[in-house]
Protein backbone atom coordinates (compact mmCIF):
# COMPACT_ATOMS: atom_id res chain seq x y z
CA UNK A 1 0.00 0.00 0.00
CA UNK A 2 1.26 3.46 -0.86
CA UNK A 3 2.11 5.55 2.19
CA UNK A 4 3.29 9.14 2.02
CA UNK A 5 5.57 10.57 4.70
CA UNK A 6 6.70 14.14 5.28
CA UNK A 7 10.02 15.39 6.59
CA UNK A 8 12.41 18.31 6.22
CA UNK A 9 14.03 18.78 2.77
CA UNK A 10 17.81 18.42 3.29
CA UNK A 11 19.26 17.84 -0.19
CA UNK A 12 17.69 18.48 -3.58
CA UNK A 13 16.75 15.82 -6.15
CA UNK A 14 14.41 12.89 -6.65
CA UNK A 15 15.07 9.14 -6.72
CA UNK A 16 13.52 5.72 -6.40
CA UNK A 17 15.30 2.83 -4.73
CA UNK A 18 15.04 -0.09 -2.36
CA UNK A 19 15.08 0.90 1.30
CA UNK A 20 18.33 -0.08 3.00
CA UNK A 21 17.80 0.12 6.73
CA UNK A 22 20.82 0.95 8.86
CA UNK A 23 20.40 -0.68 12.26
CA UNK A 24 23.19 -0.31 14.79
CA UNK A 25 24.38 -3.82 15.71
CA UNK A 26 22.42 -4.79 18.79
CA UNK A 27 22.88 -7.48 21.47
CA UNK A 28 20.20 -9.62 19.80
CA UNK A 29 22.88 -11.45 17.80
CA UNK A 30 25.48 -13.69 19.39
CA UNK A 31 29.23 -13.35 19.06
CA UNK A 32 31.14 -15.61 16.70
CA UNK A 33 34.64 -14.50 17.65
CA UNK A 34 36.49 -12.96 20.62
CA UNK A 35 36.57 -9.30 21.58
CA UNK A 36 40.33 -8.88 20.83
CA UNK A 37 39.96 -10.51 17.38
CA UNK A 38 36.95 -8.39 16.50
CA UNK A 39 38.74 -5.26 17.73
CA UNK A 40 41.83 -6.04 15.66
CA UNK A 41 39.68 -6.47 12.55
CA UNK A 42 37.89 -3.18 13.29
CA UNK A 43 41.21 -1.36 13.79
CA UNK A 44 42.58 -2.72 10.50
CA UNK A 45 39.40 -1.64 8.69
CA UNK A 46 39.64 1.86 10.19
CA UNK A 47 43.29 2.21 9.21
CA UNK A 48 42.46 1.22 5.64
CA UNK A 49 39.60 3.71 5.63
CA UNK A 50 41.91 6.50 6.83
CA UNK A 51 44.42 5.55 4.12
CA UNK A 52 41.77 5.68 1.42
CA UNK A 53 40.47 9.07 2.55
CA UNK A 54 44.03 10.45 2.63
CA UNK A 55 44.61 9.19 -0.91
CA UNK A 56 41.40 11.00 -1.94
CA UNK A 57 42.75 14.23 -0.43
CA UNK A 58 40.34 14.24 2.54
CA UNK A 59 42.95 14.73 5.25
CA UNK A 60 40.54 16.06 7.88
CA UNK A 61 38.17 13.08 7.51
CA UNK A 62 41.15 10.71 7.52
CA UNK A 63 42.23 11.99 10.93
CA UNK A 64 38.88 11.04 12.45
CA UNK A 65 39.47 7.42 11.45
CA UNK A 66 43.15 7.43 12.50
CA UNK A 67 41.94 8.34 15.97
CA UNK A 68 39.19 5.71 15.80
CA UNK A 69 41.73 3.02 14.80
CA UNK A 70 43.78 3.83 17.88
CA UNK A 71 40.65 3.63 20.04
CA UNK A 72 39.72 0.23 18.58
CA UNK A 73 43.14 -1.07 19.64
CA UNK A 74 42.99 0.52 23.09
CA UNK A 75 44.22 -2.00 25.70
CA UNK A 76 42.08 -0.61 28.54
CA UNK A 77 38.93 -0.80 26.46
CA UNK A 78 39.68 -4.38 25.44
CA UNK A 79 40.74 -5.44 28.97
CA UNK A 80 37.54 -4.07 30.46
CA UNK A 81 35.35 -5.75 27.85
CA UNK A 82 37.27 -9.04 28.11
CA UNK A 83 36.98 -9.03 31.93
CA UNK A 84 33.22 -8.57 31.59
CA UNK A 85 33.05 -11.50 29.18
CA UNK A 86 35.14 -13.63 31.57
CA UNK A 87 32.64 -12.73 34.30
CA UNK A 88 29.87 -14.14 32.15
CA UNK A 89 28.66 -11.15 30.07
CA UNK A 90 27.62 -11.47 26.44
CA UNK A 91 30.56 -10.15 24.34
CA UNK A 92 28.39 -7.87 22.18
CA UNK A 93 26.78 -6.35 25.27
CA UNK A 94 30.18 -6.14 26.99
CA UNK A 95 31.83 -4.03 24.28
CA UNK A 96 28.74 -1.83 24.02
CA UNK A 97 28.55 -1.26 27.79
CA UNK A 98 32.29 -0.62 28.10
CA UNK A 99 32.16 1.92 25.28
CA UNK A 100 29.15 3.56 26.87
CA UNK A 101 31.03 3.91 30.17
CA UNK A 102 34.02 5.54 28.44
CA UNK A 103 31.76 7.84 26.40
CA UNK A 104 29.92 8.88 29.55
CA UNK A 105 33.29 9.67 31.23
CA UNK A 106 34.20 11.94 28.33
CA UNK A 107 30.84 13.67 28.44
CA UNK A 108 31.12 14.22 32.20
CA UNK A 109 34.43 16.12 31.89
CA UNK A 110 32.71 19.36 30.86
CA UNK A 111 35.08 19.81 27.92
CA UNK A 112 33.44 20.34 24.56
CA UNK A 113 36.23 18.79 22.52
CA UNK A 114 36.13 15.60 24.60
CA UNK A 115 32.33 15.48 24.60
CA UNK A 116 32.45 15.41 20.82
CA UNK A 117 34.87 12.46 20.98
CA UNK A 118 32.25 10.43 22.90
CA UNK A 119 30.43 9.88 19.59
CA UNK A 120 33.65 8.42 18.15
CA UNK A 121 33.93 5.98 21.05
CA UNK A 122 30.37 4.74 20.46
CA UNK A 123 31.00 4.50 16.72
CA UNK A 124 34.15 2.39 17.31
CA UNK A 125 32.38 0.05 19.73
CA UNK A 126 29.50 -0.41 17.25
CA UNK A 127 32.07 -1.41 14.65
CA UNK A 128 33.73 -3.91 17.01
CA UNK A 129 30.27 -5.34 17.79
CA UNK A 130 29.62 -5.75 14.08
CA UNK A 131 32.82 -7.76 13.72
CA UNK A 132 31.92 -9.80 16.81
CA UNK A 133 28.70 -11.09 15.26
CA UNK A 134 30.38 -11.50 11.90
CA UNK A 135 27.97 -9.10 10.22
CA UNK A 136 29.15 -7.89 6.84
CA UNK A 137 30.28 -4.31 6.43
CA UNK A 138 27.37 -2.15 5.37
CA UNK A 139 27.03 -2.89 1.68
CA UNK A 140 24.46 -1.83 -0.88
CA UNK A 141 23.49 -4.40 -3.49
CA UNK A 142 21.16 -2.28 -5.62
CA UNK A 143 20.20 1.37 -5.99
CA UNK A 144 19.14 2.15 -2.46
CA UNK A 145 17.57 4.81 -0.31
CA UNK A 146 19.44 4.57 2.98
CA UNK A 147 17.05 4.74 5.93
CA UNK A 148 18.17 5.26 9.54
CA UNK A 149 17.39 7.09 12.73
CA UNK A 150 20.75 8.79 12.28
CA UNK A 151 23.72 7.83 10.17
CA UNK A 152 27.17 7.90 11.83
CA UNK A 153 30.08 9.19 9.72
CA UNK A 154 31.78 5.77 9.60
CA UNK A 155 28.74 4.24 7.86
CA UNK A 156 28.19 7.07 5.42
CA UNK A 157 31.77 7.09 4.13
CA UNK A 158 31.74 3.32 3.54
CA UNK A 159 28.58 3.10 1.45
CA UNK A 160 29.08 2.48 -2.27
CA UNK A 161 28.39 5.89 -3.77
CA UNK A 162 27.40 4.46 -7.15
CA UNK A 163 24.43 2.68 -5.53
CA UNK A 164 23.51 5.35 -2.98
CA UNK A 165 20.40 6.98 -4.48
CA UNK A 166 19.15 8.94 -1.48
CA UNK A 167 19.20 9.33 2.31
CA UNK A 168 16.15 9.47 4.59
CA UNK A 169 16.52 9.95 8.33
CA UNK A 170 14.13 9.84 11.25
CA UNK A 171 16.35 12.30 13.13
CA UNK A 172 19.06 14.61 11.89
CA UNK A 173 18.95 18.12 10.53
CA UNK A 174 19.98 19.96 7.37
CA UNK A 175 23.45 20.35 8.89
CA UNK A 176 23.97 16.75 10.00
CA UNK A 177 26.87 14.85 8.46
CA UNK A 178 24.64 12.69 6.24
CA UNK A 179 22.77 15.72 4.82
CA UNK A 180 26.02 17.49 3.97
CA UNK A 181 27.31 14.33 2.30
CA UNK A 182 24.09 14.03 0.26
CA UNK A 183 24.38 17.60 -1.00
CA UNK A 184 28.03 17.02 -1.86
CA UNK A 185 27.14 13.88 -3.84
CA UNK A 186 24.13 15.56 -5.46
CA UNK A 187 21.65 12.98 -4.15
CA UNK A 188 18.32 13.76 -2.44
CA UNK A 189 17.96 13.68 1.35
CA UNK A 190 14.99 14.14 3.67
CA UNK A 191 15.49 14.33 7.44
CA UNK A 192 13.22 14.43 10.49
CA UNK A 193 10.66 11.90 9.20
CA UNK A 194 8.66 10.58 12.19
CA UNK A 195 8.49 6.78 12.63
CA UNK A 196 10.38 6.27 9.35
CA UNK A 197 12.43 3.18 10.24
CA UNK A 198 9.39 1.20 11.41
CA UNK A 199 7.34 2.11 8.34
CA UNK A 200 10.13 1.51 5.79
CA UNK A 201 11.21 -1.83 7.28
CA UNK A 202 10.07 -4.60 4.97
CA UNK A 203 9.00 -2.21 2.19
CA UNK A 204 10.03 -3.11 -1.35
CA UNK A 205 10.47 0.35 -2.77
CA UNK A 206 10.84 3.93 -1.62
CA UNK A 207 10.55 7.16 -3.59
CA UNK A 208 12.27 10.26 -2.22
CA UNK A 209 11.72 13.88 -3.17
CA UNK A 210 14.44 15.98 -1.55
CA UNK A 211 12.94 19.28 -2.71
CA UNK A 212 9.51 18.75 -1.17
CA UNK A 213 10.76 16.75 1.84
CA UNK A 214 8.49 13.89 0.76
CA UNK A 215 8.91 10.10 0.97
CA UNK A 216 6.55 7.62 -0.63
CA UNK A 217 6.65 4.00 0.56
CA UNK A 218 5.58 1.54 -2.20
CA UNK A 219 4.91 4.35 -4.70
CA UNK A 220 2.07 3.84 -7.21
CA UNK A 221 2.57 4.27 -10.96
CA UNK A 222 1.75 7.97 -10.93
CA UNK A 223 4.37 8.76 -8.26
CA UNK A 224 6.89 6.45 -9.92
CA UNK A 225 6.49 8.21 -13.27
CA UNK A 226 6.79 11.64 -11.65
CA UNK A 227 9.91 10.77 -9.63
CA UNK A 228 11.53 8.77 -12.44
CA UNK A 229 10.97 11.65 -14.86
CA UNK A 230 12.51 14.14 -12.48
CA UNK A 231 15.41 11.81 -11.64
CA UNK A 232 16.17 11.34 -15.34
CA UNK A 233 15.99 15.09 -15.99
CA UNK A 234 18.20 15.71 -12.94
CA UNK A 235 20.69 13.13 -14.18
CA UNK A 236 20.85 14.73 -17.63
CA UNK A 237 21.18 18.19 -16.11
CA UNK A 238 23.93 17.08 -13.71
CA UNK A 239 25.89 15.41 -16.49
CA UNK A 240 25.60 18.57 -18.58
CA UNK A 241 26.60 20.74 -15.59
CA UNK A 242 29.55 18.52 -14.75
CA UNK A 243 30.99 18.97 -18.23
CA UNK A 244 31.29 22.73 -17.46
CA UNK A 245 32.72 22.49 -13.91
CA UNK A 246 36.38 22.74 -14.90
CA UNK A 247 35.89 25.44 -17.56
CA UNK A 248 36.32 29.16 -16.88
CA UNK A 249 33.26 31.09 -15.68
CA UNK A 250 32.52 33.15 -18.81
CA UNK A 251 29.74 34.26 -21.13
CA UNK A 252 29.50 32.74 -24.61
CA UNK A 253 31.40 35.76 -25.99
CA UNK A 254 34.21 35.45 -23.46
CA UNK A 255 33.39 37.94 -20.68
CA UNK A 256 35.18 36.39 -17.66
CA UNK A 257 34.08 36.48 -14.04
CA UNK A 258 36.19 35.00 -11.24
CA UNK A 259 34.76 31.70 -9.96
CA UNK A 260 35.46 31.40 -6.22
CA UNK A 261 34.45 29.00 -3.46
CA UNK A 262 32.78 29.50 -0.07
CA UNK A 263 34.33 27.27 2.60
CA UNK A 264 33.74 26.81 6.31
CA UNK A 265 36.67 24.54 7.28
CA UNK A 266 40.35 24.66 6.27
CA UNK A 267 40.17 21.08 4.95
CA UNK A 268 37.62 22.10 2.30
CA UNK A 269 40.07 24.32 0.39
CA UNK A 270 41.84 21.56 -1.54
CA UNK A 271 38.55 20.05 -2.69
CA UNK A 272 37.32 23.49 -3.79
CA UNK A 273 40.36 24.01 -6.01
CA UNK A 274 40.07 20.48 -7.38
CA UNK A 275 36.44 21.28 -8.28
CA UNK A 276 37.49 24.29 -10.35
CA UNK A 277 37.73 27.25 -7.95
CA UNK A 278 39.99 30.13 -8.95
CA UNK A 279 40.09 31.46 -5.40
CA UNK A 280 38.40 31.30 -2.00
CA UNK A 281 35.84 34.10 -2.02
CA UNK A 282 34.57 33.44 1.50
CA UNK A 283 36.51 31.55 4.16
CA UNK A 284 34.18 31.55 7.16
CA UNK A 285 36.22 31.44 10.36
CA UNK A 286 33.49 30.60 12.88
CA UNK A 287 34.72 26.97 12.93
CA UNK A 288 37.79 28.15 14.88
CA UNK A 289 35.58 29.58 17.62
CA UNK A 290 32.75 27.04 17.85
CA UNK A 291 32.65 23.93 20.05
CA UNK A 292 35.27 24.96 22.59
CA UNK A 293 35.27 26.33 26.11
CA UNK A 294 38.06 28.91 25.72
CA UNK A 295 38.91 31.39 22.97
CA UNK A 296 41.22 30.00 20.26
CA UNK A 297 44.69 31.50 20.54
CA UNK A 298 46.66 33.17 17.78
CA UNK A 299 48.78 30.08 17.09
CA UNK A 300 45.81 27.71 16.62
CA UNK A 301 44.10 30.18 14.33
CA UNK A 302 47.28 30.86 12.34
CA UNK A 303 47.74 27.11 11.73
CA UNK A 304 44.21 26.82 10.33
CA UNK A 305 44.51 29.91 8.13
CA UNK A 306 47.94 28.83 6.85
CA UNK A 307 46.43 25.53 5.68
CA UNK A 308 44.06 27.42 3.38
CA UNK A 309 46.70 29.88 2.10
CA UNK A 310 48.94 26.89 1.40
CA UNK A 311 46.15 25.01 -0.44
CA UNK A 312 45.43 28.13 -2.53
CA UNK A 313 49.00 28.27 -3.80
CA UNK A 314 48.86 32.01 -4.52
CA UNK A 315 45.18 32.21 -5.59
CA UNK A 316 43.20 34.84 -3.65
CA UNK A 317 41.83 33.84 -0.23
CA UNK A 318 39.24 36.06 1.44
CA UNK A 319 39.27 35.38 5.19
CA UNK A 320 36.14 36.73 6.85
CA UNK A 321 36.55 37.92 10.43
CA UNK A 322 34.40 35.93 12.87
CA UNK A 323 30.69 36.53 12.35
CA UNK A 324 29.60 35.67 15.88
CA UNK A 325 26.38 36.86 17.45
CA UNK A 326 23.75 36.29 20.07
CA UNK A 327 22.07 33.60 17.96
CA UNK A 328 24.96 31.25 18.79
CA UNK A 329 26.67 32.62 21.92
CA UNK A 330 29.97 31.04 22.95
CA UNK A 331 30.85 30.14 26.52
CA UNK A 332 33.93 32.41 26.54
CA UNK A 333 32.27 35.24 24.65
CA UNK A 334 29.21 36.29 26.63
CA UNK A 335 26.63 38.32 24.73
CA UNK A 336 23.66 39.59 26.74
CA UNK A 337 20.33 38.08 25.62
CA UNK A 338 18.97 40.06 22.71
CA UNK A 339 15.42 40.27 21.34
CA UNK A 340 16.81 40.09 17.80
CA UNK A 341 20.41 38.86 17.52
CA UNK A 342 20.51 39.51 13.74
CA UNK A 343 20.04 43.19 14.52
CA UNK A 344 22.20 42.93 17.61
CA UNK A 345 25.80 43.11 18.80
CA UNK A 346 27.31 40.71 16.28
CA UNK A 347 30.40 40.41 14.05
CA UNK A 348 32.62 43.52 14.15
CA UNK A 349 30.18 45.18 16.52
CA UNK A 350 31.77 42.91 19.17
CA UNK A 351 35.07 44.78 18.80
CA UNK A 352 34.19 47.27 21.55
CA UNK A 353 33.00 44.76 24.17
CA UNK A 354 35.63 42.10 23.37
CA UNK A 355 38.84 44.05 22.74
CA UNK A 356 41.08 41.00 22.16
CA UNK A 357 38.87 39.09 19.73
CA UNK A 358 39.71 40.79 16.43
CA UNK A 359 43.31 41.93 17.12
CA UNK A 360 44.15 38.26 17.85
CA UNK A 361 42.36 37.06 14.73
CA UNK A 362 43.91 39.65 12.41
CA UNK A 363 47.40 38.92 13.83
CA UNK A 364 46.77 35.19 13.25
CA UNK A 365 45.78 35.83 9.62
CA UNK A 366 48.92 37.91 9.06
CA UNK A 367 51.10 35.34 10.85
CA UNK A 368 49.72 32.67 8.47
CA UNK A 369 50.37 35.01 5.57
CA UNK A 370 53.97 35.63 6.70
CA UNK A 371 54.60 31.92 7.21
CA UNK A 372 53.30 30.92 3.78
CA UNK A 373 54.49 34.02 1.92
CA UNK A 374 50.95 34.37 0.51
CA UNK A 375 48.94 37.58 0.61
CA UNK A 376 45.66 37.29 2.51
CA UNK A 377 42.46 39.24 1.92
CA UNK A 378 40.75 40.25 5.16
CA UNK A 379 37.01 40.89 5.09
CA UNK A 380 34.93 42.45 7.85
CA UNK A 381 31.27 41.40 8.25
CA UNK A 382 28.39 43.72 9.27
CA UNK A 383 30.15 46.94 8.24
CA UNK A 384 27.62 49.79 8.34
CA UNK A 385 29.61 52.95 7.67
CA UNK A 386 33.04 54.56 7.20
CA UNK A 387 33.76 54.44 10.94
CA UNK A 388 33.45 50.65 10.81
CA UNK A 389 35.91 50.59 7.89
CA UNK A 390 38.30 52.80 9.87
CA UNK A 391 38.08 50.33 12.75
CA UNK A 392 39.06 47.46 10.45
CA UNK A 393 41.86 49.49 8.87
CA UNK A 394 43.14 50.22 12.39
CA UNK A 395 43.07 46.52 13.31
CA UNK A 396 45.09 45.68 10.22
CA UNK A 397 47.58 48.53 10.84
CA UNK A 398 48.20 47.39 14.42
CA UNK A 399 48.55 43.74 13.41
CA UNK A 400 51.01 44.62 10.64
CA UNK A 401 53.14 46.39 13.24
CA UNK A 402 53.15 43.16 15.29
CA UNK A 403 53.81 40.91 12.27
CA UNK A 404 56.06 43.13 10.14
CA UNK A 405 57.20 40.39 7.76
CA UNK A 406 53.64 39.67 6.55
CA UNK A 407 52.71 40.84 3.05
CA UNK A 408 50.23 43.74 3.39
CA UNK A 409 46.74 42.21 3.09
CA UNK A 410 43.90 43.35 0.85
CA UNK A 411 41.18 44.80 3.05
CA UNK A 412 37.52 44.52 2.21
CA UNK A 413 34.02 44.50 3.63
CA UNK A 414 30.86 42.43 3.43
CA UNK A 415 27.99 44.48 2.05
CA UNK A 416 24.95 43.15 3.86
CA UNK A 417 23.77 46.04 6.04
CA UNK A 418 21.55 48.29 3.89
CA UNK A 419 23.40 51.40 5.13
CA UNK A 420 26.57 50.07 3.45
CA UNK A 421 24.68 49.97 0.12
CA UNK A 422 23.55 53.59 0.51
CA UNK A 423 27.08 54.63 1.52
CA UNK A 424 28.82 52.40 -1.05
CA UNK A 425 30.42 55.36 -2.88
CA UNK A 426 32.20 56.48 0.30
CA UNK A 427 33.12 52.96 1.43
CA UNK A 428 34.45 51.88 -1.98
CA UNK A 429 37.17 54.54 -1.76
CA UNK A 430 38.42 53.06 1.53
CA UNK A 431 38.62 49.35 0.64
CA UNK A 432 40.18 47.01 -1.91
CA UNK A 433 37.06 44.92 -2.41
CA UNK A 434 33.43 44.60 -1.40
CA UNK A 435 31.62 41.28 -1.21
CA UNK A 436 27.84 41.37 -1.20
CA UNK A 437 26.28 38.92 1.24
CA UNK A 438 22.95 38.54 -0.52
CA UNK A 439 21.37 36.26 2.12
CA UNK A 440 21.51 38.82 4.92
CA UNK A 441 21.13 41.79 2.57
CA UNK A 442 17.86 40.33 1.24
CA UNK A 443 16.57 39.71 4.76
CA UNK A 444 17.47 43.23 5.89
CA UNK A 445 16.20 44.99 2.74
CA UNK A 446 12.88 43.12 2.69
CA UNK A 447 12.57 43.00 6.49
CA UNK A 448 12.01 39.23 6.29
CA UNK A 449 13.59 37.11 9.05
CA UNK A 450 15.72 34.35 7.49
CA UNK A 451 14.83 31.98 10.30
CA UNK A 452 11.07 32.38 9.78
CA UNK A 453 9.90 29.68 7.34
CA UNK A 454 6.55 31.45 6.88
CA UNK A 455 8.44 34.26 5.10
CA UNK A 456 10.34 31.97 2.72
CA UNK A 457 8.61 33.51 -0.32
CA UNK A 458 9.89 36.96 0.69
CA UNK A 459 13.53 35.88 0.88
CA UNK A 460 14.32 35.49 -2.81
CA UNK A 461 17.50 37.48 -3.55
CA UNK A 462 16.35 37.91 -7.17
CA UNK A 463 14.06 40.67 -5.88
CA UNK A 464 14.38 43.93 -7.85
CA UNK A 465 15.33 45.79 -4.65
CA UNK A 466 18.31 43.49 -4.11
CA UNK A 467 19.29 43.81 -7.79
CA UNK A 468 19.23 47.61 -7.47
CA UNK A 469 21.40 47.36 -4.37
CA UNK A 470 23.91 45.23 -6.28
CA UNK A 471 23.85 47.69 -9.21
CA UNK A 472 24.48 50.59 -6.84
CA UNK A 473 27.48 48.85 -5.24
CA UNK A 474 28.94 47.99 -8.67
CA UNK A 475 28.57 51.63 -9.81
CA UNK A 476 30.17 52.92 -6.60
CA UNK A 477 33.15 50.58 -7.01
CA UNK A 478 33.60 51.59 -10.64
CA UNK A 479 33.57 55.27 -9.66
CA UNK A 480 36.13 54.67 -6.91
CA UNK A 481 38.47 52.92 -9.32
CA UNK A 482 40.51 50.22 -7.65
CA UNK A 483 37.75 48.27 -5.88
CA UNK A 484 36.43 44.85 -6.89
CA UNK A 485 32.89 43.61 -6.30
CA UNK A 486 32.10 40.01 -5.45
CA UNK A 487 28.91 38.25 -4.37
CA UNK A 488 29.25 35.46 -1.81
CA UNK A 489 25.59 34.74 -0.94
CA UNK A 490 23.57 31.75 -2.13
CA UNK A 491 22.39 33.90 -5.07
CA UNK A 492 25.85 33.48 -6.67
CA UNK A 493 25.39 29.69 -6.73
CA UNK A 494 21.87 29.82 -8.20
CA UNK A 495 22.06 29.80 -12.03
CA UNK A 496 19.31 32.44 -12.33
CA UNK A 497 20.93 34.65 -9.71
CA UNK A 498 24.35 34.22 -11.33
CA UNK A 499 23.04 35.36 -14.74
CA UNK A 500 21.62 38.51 -13.17
CA UNK A 501 24.80 39.23 -11.18
CA UNK A 502 27.04 38.88 -14.22
CA UNK A 503 24.65 41.19 -16.11
CA UNK A 504 24.87 43.71 -13.27
CA UNK A 505 28.67 43.75 -13.64
CA UNK A 506 30.08 41.94 -10.59
CA UNK A 507 33.71 40.78 -10.88
CA UNK A 508 33.49 37.56 -8.86
CA UNK A 509 30.92 34.94 -7.86
CA UNK A 510 31.71 32.91 -4.76
CA UNK A 511 29.63 29.80 -4.06
CA UNK A 512 29.58 26.21 -2.82
CA UNK A 513 31.85 24.20 -5.17
CA UNK A 514 28.93 21.84 -5.96
CA UNK A 515 27.29 24.76 -7.82
CA UNK A 516 30.22 25.49 -10.19
CA UNK A 517 28.98 23.33 -13.08
CA UNK A 518 25.39 24.62 -13.11
CA UNK A 519 26.44 28.28 -12.82
CA UNK A 520 29.15 28.03 -15.48
CA UNK A 521 26.79 26.26 -17.88
CA UNK A 522 24.09 28.91 -17.39
CA UNK A 523 26.48 31.85 -17.88
CA UNK A 524 28.09 30.24 -20.94
CA UNK A 525 24.66 30.14 -22.64
CA UNK A 526 24.36 33.95 -22.91
CA UNK A 527 26.39 36.87 -24.23
CA UNK A 528 27.43 39.69 -21.92
CA UNK A 529 25.20 42.13 -23.81
CA UNK A 530 22.18 39.87 -23.31
CA UNK A 531 22.94 39.67 -19.59
CA UNK A 532 23.45 43.44 -19.25
CA UNK A 533 20.07 44.02 -20.91
CA UNK A 534 18.56 41.45 -18.58
CA UNK A 535 20.18 43.11 -15.55
CA UNK A 536 18.72 46.48 -16.50
CA UNK A 537 15.25 45.12 -17.24
CA UNK A 538 15.12 43.06 -14.05
CA UNK A 539 15.62 46.16 -11.89
CA UNK A 540 12.24 47.53 -12.97
CA UNK A 541 10.35 44.24 -12.67
CA UNK A 542 7.51 44.06 -10.12
CA UNK A 543 8.70 41.15 -7.95
CA UNK A 544 11.25 38.36 -7.56
CA UNK A 545 8.89 36.02 -9.41
CA UNK A 546 8.63 38.51 -12.28
CA UNK A 547 12.45 38.68 -12.40
CA UNK A 548 12.73 34.89 -12.58
CA UNK A 549 10.12 34.82 -15.37
CA UNK A 550 12.15 37.43 -17.24
CA UNK A 551 15.33 35.35 -16.97
CA UNK A 552 13.52 32.20 -18.14
CA UNK A 553 11.96 33.98 -21.15
Amino acid at each position, binding site marked *: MTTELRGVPAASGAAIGAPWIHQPAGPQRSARTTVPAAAAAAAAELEALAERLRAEGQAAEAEIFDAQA*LMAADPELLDAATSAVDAGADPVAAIGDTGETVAATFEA*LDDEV*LSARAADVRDVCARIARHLVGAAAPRLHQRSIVVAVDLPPSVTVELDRALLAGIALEGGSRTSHAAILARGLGIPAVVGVPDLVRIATGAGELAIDGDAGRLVVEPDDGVRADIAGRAAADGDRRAADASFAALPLATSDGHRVLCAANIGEPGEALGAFAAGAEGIGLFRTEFAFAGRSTAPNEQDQADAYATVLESAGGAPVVVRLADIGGDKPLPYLPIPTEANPFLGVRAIRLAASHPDLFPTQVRAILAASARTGRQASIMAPMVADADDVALVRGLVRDALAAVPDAPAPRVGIMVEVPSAVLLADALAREVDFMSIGTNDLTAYLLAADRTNAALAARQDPCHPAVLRAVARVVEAAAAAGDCEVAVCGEMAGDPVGALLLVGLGVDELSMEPSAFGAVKRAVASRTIDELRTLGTAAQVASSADAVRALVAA
Partner: protein
Amino acid sequence: MAERDVEVRNPSGLHARPAASFVKAAGAFAADVRVTNLTRDEAKSASAKSVLGVMGLGVARGHRIRIVATGDDAEAAVTTLVDLVASGLGETIEEA
Protein backbone atom coordinates in the same frame (compact mmCIF):
# COMPACT_ATOMS: atom_id res chain seq x y z
CA MET B 1 60.38 2.93 39.35
CA ALA B 2 60.67 6.39 37.80
CA GLU B 3 58.43 9.39 38.34
CA ARG B 4 58.33 13.00 37.02
CA ASP B 5 55.81 15.85 36.86
CA VAL B 6 55.46 18.07 33.81
CA GLU B 7 53.20 20.91 32.70
CA VAL B 8 51.28 20.41 29.45
CA ARG B 9 51.74 23.60 27.44
CA ASN B 10 50.68 22.71 23.90
CA PRO B 11 47.37 24.35 22.82
CA SER B 12 45.09 21.31 22.68
CA GLY B 13 46.37 19.53 25.81
CA LEU B 14 46.21 15.74 25.73
CA HIS B 15 43.28 15.64 23.31
CA ALA B 16 43.03 14.15 19.85
CA ARG B 17 46.30 14.18 17.92
CA PRO B 18 48.63 15.03 20.85
CA ALA B 19 47.05 12.22 22.90
CA ALA B 20 47.67 9.82 20.02
CA SER B 21 51.35 10.88 19.79
CA PHE B 22 51.74 10.44 23.54
CA VAL B 23 50.14 6.97 23.58
CA LYS B 24 52.12 5.76 20.57
CA ALA B 25 55.38 6.86 22.25
CA ALA B 26 54.42 5.13 25.52
CA GLY B 27 53.59 1.93 23.65
CA ALA B 28 57.22 1.59 22.57
CA PHE B 29 58.33 0.81 26.14
CA ALA B 30 58.01 -2.45 28.06
CA ALA B 31 57.49 -0.60 31.33
CA ASP B 32 54.05 -0.12 32.80
CA VAL B 33 53.44 3.64 32.54
CA ARG B 34 50.65 5.50 34.30
CA VAL B 35 49.56 9.14 34.07
CA THR B 36 47.72 11.33 36.59
CA ASN B 37 46.25 14.76 35.92
CA LEU B 38 47.38 16.59 39.08
CA THR B 39 45.36 19.68 38.20
CA ARG B 40 42.02 17.90 37.84
CA ASP B 41 42.07 14.79 40.05
CA GLU B 42 45.15 13.43 41.87
CA ALA B 43 43.33 10.22 42.75
CA LYS B 44 42.65 9.12 39.18
CA SER B 45 45.29 7.61 36.91
CA ALA B 46 45.25 5.98 33.50
CA SER B 47 47.58 3.79 31.47
CA ALA B 48 49.79 5.91 29.21
CA LYS B 49 49.28 3.22 26.57
CA SER B 50 45.49 3.76 26.44
CA VAL B 51 44.32 6.62 24.25
CA LEU B 52 40.85 6.47 25.82
CA GLY B 53 42.36 6.45 29.31
CA VAL B 54 44.63 9.42 28.56
CA MET B 55 41.85 11.41 26.89
CA GLY B 56 39.57 10.61 29.82
CA LEU B 57 41.92 12.48 32.17
CA GLY B 58 40.77 15.69 30.50
CA VAL B 59 44.24 17.23 30.35
CA ALA B 60 43.99 20.79 29.03
CA ARG B 61 46.75 23.30 28.40
CA GLY B 62 48.24 24.51 31.67
CA HIS B 63 47.46 21.29 33.56
CA ARG B 64 50.28 19.43 35.39
CA ILE B 65 50.54 15.71 34.89
CA ARG B 66 52.53 13.03 36.75
CA ILE B 67 54.11 10.19 34.78
CA VAL B 68 55.02 7.06 36.78
CA ALA B 69 56.73 4.04 35.20
CA THR B 70 57.66 0.64 36.62
CA GLY B 71 59.70 -2.01 34.83
CA ASP B 72 62.99 -2.50 33.01
CA ASP B 73 63.04 0.65 30.88
CA ALA B 74 61.07 2.80 33.35
CA GLU B 75 63.66 5.59 33.48
CA ALA B 76 63.90 5.85 29.68
CA ALA B 77 60.10 5.79 29.32
CA VAL B 78 59.59 8.67 31.76
CA THR B 79 62.40 10.76 30.25
CA THR B 80 61.10 10.25 26.71
CA LEU B 81 57.49 11.06 27.59
CA VAL B 82 58.37 14.12 29.69
CA ASP B 83 60.54 15.46 26.85
CA LEU B 84 57.74 14.80 24.37
CA VAL B 85 55.19 16.68 26.49
CA ALA B 86 57.64 19.54 27.13
CA SER B 87 58.29 19.86 23.40
CA GLY B 88 54.55 20.30 22.68
CA LEU B 89 53.64 16.84 21.29
CA GLY B 90 54.01 18.02 17.73
CA GLU B 91 52.17 21.29 18.35
CA THR B 92 53.78 24.69 18.65
CA ILE B 93 53.90 26.07 22.17
CA GLU B 94 52.94 29.70 22.44
CA GLU B 95 54.64 31.71 25.17
CA ALA B 96 52.10 33.19 27.53
